[in-house]
Structure formats: structure tokens, C-alpha cells
């Protein structure tokens, strides 16, 4: 691998990006997904995180353009140069430009946008070209890579970690709970008594417990949970999610992070996402959801944010009037704030830090207090 001269790099780990315009070759959702997945490639192996912004100057401005496009390095029409990007820094530095005279595609029929974006964003983060043909940062476009299960080469990983180091260790004890994933420093420990969760959701009869970049997959009939990286199943999903819930009638799990939400069905991310949470009817002041659960009998979703909750009508696809209300008002013993919630055996299980409250929604009372990881057969 190599870096730019003087090895410029970002002096912060939380970066912003903005998709300034779109190619007509692909749907906007397809472009969004390709860029998000490309960022995730680098996010997975560094302490870097990326937040999308929709206006103003982002650290990484992403544009599609043809020929001369304002940086004195014109594109060359179809073929040959596909894109270019600048080393980290202010203004145009860090930006990624894509030649819209190429035929951009989601597959390899044309030029695969994800693959090119992942390469260009490597430049945006400070990597220059590699002379290793296996590397993503090799300058020649190569579709022989396994795109559905794309992984960086060791050369790319060494390169980017020479600038930013490895991902941060989890506060939990770095012990690997099962053999589902290889031992990676920073993996949260299944039986750590202080374990808390980012989000919990059911999925086709199983329970998914999300934490950082990982999730545990617990089947009721199997004692030991499986442990996986989120990106193994859903490469386009973000890490460190805020909330998740399943709508069984739609066979869909909705995943929330910040002001956006995604939809997955099995291990397929659904087209048309992410969407903005405000399209659900939240006021502009709400910037994230803490937890969510769908009541399949009532066809209502309960969204929890800070010390309040909203009720959403899944049939009308709109918020019920009269909300938000205080959590403590209708869920006595819960809150004031929750991390995650899911339903099992007719009970709601609220997780807050390392504690879990079993709540009977009919009796409206807490029936048991457990450890958050009580489902893991510790």
C-alpha cells in the first residue's frame, strides 16, 4: 500500500459525507446503498464513523459529473478513467468524483458503483494506490472480486490502519462467545454481567441482540446464541444501531440509526431505504429513536425516545394522535429511558443498561427483573 505524500489523514474520527447529486444510471436508493456499503468497508477496520448530511459542506462531498467539472482534472468520456478522489483535507480535499459518462450499475454489467466508490473513498481517507493486484487500492478496475461477500485485502487493512489504527475495543471484556465469528479484538463478551444492547428485535421466531458492529442470534430451541458481524448478513446496514423491531405481518424488520431507518427481510435489505424517521411523523426535534416494538395484535408500533413514547398505526402508516406521552405514564416501572425492547411469550422485555424488565402489557406491570443477557444461557 502507499499513502499520499506526507501521509495526510483526517484528524477526527467522526466524518461527514454528502451525496451532492446522482447519476441517472441508477436509482437514488441504489446510489445511497452503494456509497453506504463502501463507507462501511473502511468503517469496519478503523475507528472511523460516517454520518450523512444533506446540505452544507461535508468532509467528503460525492458528485457525479462529466468532462471538466471544476477541479481542472477533467474526466475523459466513457471508459478509461472512472473516478477520482482527493486526499484528506479541507475544501475539495477528501472529495470523490465519479465520471457520469460511465454506465454505473449495481452488478458488473457496467461499472460497479460500490467497488469504485470503495476504492475512491480509500483515497478520501488517505490511501494512495497499491501495487498489490489483490488490493482494493490497486488502480485497475477488477470485477473478479467476490462483490456480494467483498472483503478488504490485508494490504488495504494494513494501509488504512497505518493511518487510523484498528477499530476501538468494546468496553466489554474482549472474549469471543462462540465460534460463529473469528476472534477479533473488541468483540463484546456474551456473558459479561455488564453487557448492554443497542437494540433487540425478533426475526422469524428468533431474537436478534444488536451491539456495536455485531449481533447475537438466539433461537428459542437452541441454548447457545450465535454471534455474527452485522455486515456479514446485511452489508448495507449501519453499525451501532439505535433501535429495531419486527412487523411479522410484513415479514420485515425495521432498523433505526440516527434520523434514518432501513428495512430488512431475512438477510435481504429492502430497496427504497434508508428513509428519514420524520417521514413516520416524528417532530424535527427528534434526532434518534432509543427502542421500538410492534404489537402484532393491535397492529401498533411503540417508539421510545428519551423519556417519551409514540404510538404508530401500522395500518394507517401514521402516528396516533395524543402522543408523545411519558414512558412512565403507561409503562409503570419502565424507564425513564430504555435501550431496547422486544416481545416474547406475550411479554415486553425492556432492556436498560445491564438490566432487563419483563413487562406484562395487559396487567401493565413489571413481572420480573433480569440481566439483559439472561437469554444467553450464561
Amino acid at each position: 500500500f502507499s499513502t499520499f505524500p506526507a501521509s495526510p489523514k483526517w484528524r477526527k474520527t467522526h466524518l461527514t459525507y454528502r451525496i451532492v447529486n446522482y447519476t441517472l444510471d441508477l436509482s437514488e436508493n441504489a446510489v445511497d446503498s452503494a456509497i453506504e456499503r463502501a463507507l462501511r468497508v473502511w468503517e469496519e477496520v478503523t475507528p472511523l464513523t460516517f454520518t450523512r448530511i444533506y446540505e452544507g459542506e461535508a468532509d467528503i462531498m460525492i458528485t457525479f459529473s462529466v468532462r471538466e467539472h471544476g477541479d481542472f482534472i477533467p474526466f475523459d468520456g466513457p471508459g478509461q478513467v472512472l473516478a477520482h478522489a482527493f486526499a484528506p483535507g479541507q475544501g475539495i480535499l477528501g472529495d470523490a468524483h465519479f465520471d457520469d459518462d460511465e454506465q454505473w450499475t449495481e452488478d458488473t454489467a457496467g461499472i460497479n458503483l460500490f467497488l469504485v466508490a470503495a476504492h475512491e473513498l480509500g483515497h478520501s481517507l488517505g490511501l494512495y494506490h497499491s501495487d498489490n493486484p489483490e488490493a482494493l487500492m490497486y488502480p485497475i478496475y477488477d470485477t473478479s472480486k467476490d462483490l456480494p461477500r467483498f472483503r478488504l485485502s490485508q494490504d488495504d487493512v494494513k494501509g488504512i490502519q497505518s493511518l487510523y489504527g484498528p477499530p476501538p475495543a468494546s468496553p466489554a471484556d474482549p472474549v469471543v462467545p462462540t465460534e460463529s465469528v473469528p476472534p477479533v479484538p473488541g468483540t463484546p463478551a456474551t456473558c459479561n454481567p455488564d453487557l448492554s444492547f443497542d437494540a433487540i428485535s425478533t426475526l422469524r421466531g428468533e431474537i436478534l441482540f444488536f451491539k456495536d458492529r455485531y449481533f447475537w442470534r438466539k433461537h428459542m430451541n437452541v441454548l447457545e446464541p450465535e454471534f455474527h458481524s452485522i455486515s456479514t448478513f446485511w452489508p448495507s446496514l449501519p453499525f451501532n444501531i439505535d433501535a429495531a423491531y419486527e412487523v411479522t405481518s410484513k415479514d420485515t424488520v425495521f432498523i433505526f440509526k440516527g434520523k434514518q431507518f432501513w428495512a430488512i427481510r431475512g438477510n435481504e435489505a429492502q430497496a427504497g431505504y434508508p428513509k428519514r424517521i420524520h417521514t413516520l411523523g416524528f417532530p424535527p426535534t427528534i434526532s434518534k429513536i432509543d427502542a421500538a416494538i410492534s404489537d402484532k395484535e393491535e397492529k401498533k408500533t411503540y417508539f421510545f425516545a428519551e423519556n417519551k413514547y409514540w404510538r404508530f398505526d401500522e395500518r394507517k402508516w401514521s402516528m396516533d394522535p395524543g402522543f408523545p406521552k411519558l414512558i412512565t405514564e403507561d409503562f409503570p416501572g419502565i424507564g425513564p429511558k430504555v435501550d431496547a425492547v422486544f416481545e416474547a411469550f406475550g411479554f415486553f422485555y425492556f432492556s436498560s443498561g445491564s438490566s432487563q424488565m419483563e413487562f406484562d402489557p395487559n396487567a401493565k406491570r413489571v413481572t420480573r427483573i433480569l440481566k439483559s443477557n439472561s437469554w444467553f444461557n450464561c
Partner: protein
Amino acid sequence: YPLARGVRNRDSTMDFAQNYLENYYNLAKDVEKFFRRKDSSPVVKKIKEMQSFLGLKVTGQLDSDTMEMMHKPRCGVPDVGH
């Protein structure tokens, strides 16, 4: 006709290669034309540098393998000199 076409093809190949080396291997513009090529020339050195970097056999010649690789789609990231 065949001769003229051959000359034109060779010229366009050399123009392409010169532009390629200028764009991606920091070959100084206008230092030399290909017809003055000799082993020690900056152009040949740049061809060798490129062949080495791209994992090709280092010949200093614009052979078919080299030209094929140079015609593949690639990243046009601005080089350090820009």
C-alpha cells in the same frame, strides 16, 4: 493504405501511452516524443515503472500485455504532482 493506417495506429498508441504516463505516472509533459525513445529515456523509465507497479513483465516496451492493461478502466486519482 495499409502503411498509412499502420503509422496512424502507432501514433495513436504512442499518444495514448504518453498521455497515460503523464496522467498517472507523473511523466513530465513535453519532455520527449516517443520516436526519440531509447532505454535511458524518461519515457522508457516510466514505462518500466508502470510495468513494475502493475505487476507486468518489465520490458520498457509498449507490448500487447502492457497496452491491454493500460486500456482497462482505472482510477484517475490526481497524482501527487497535481
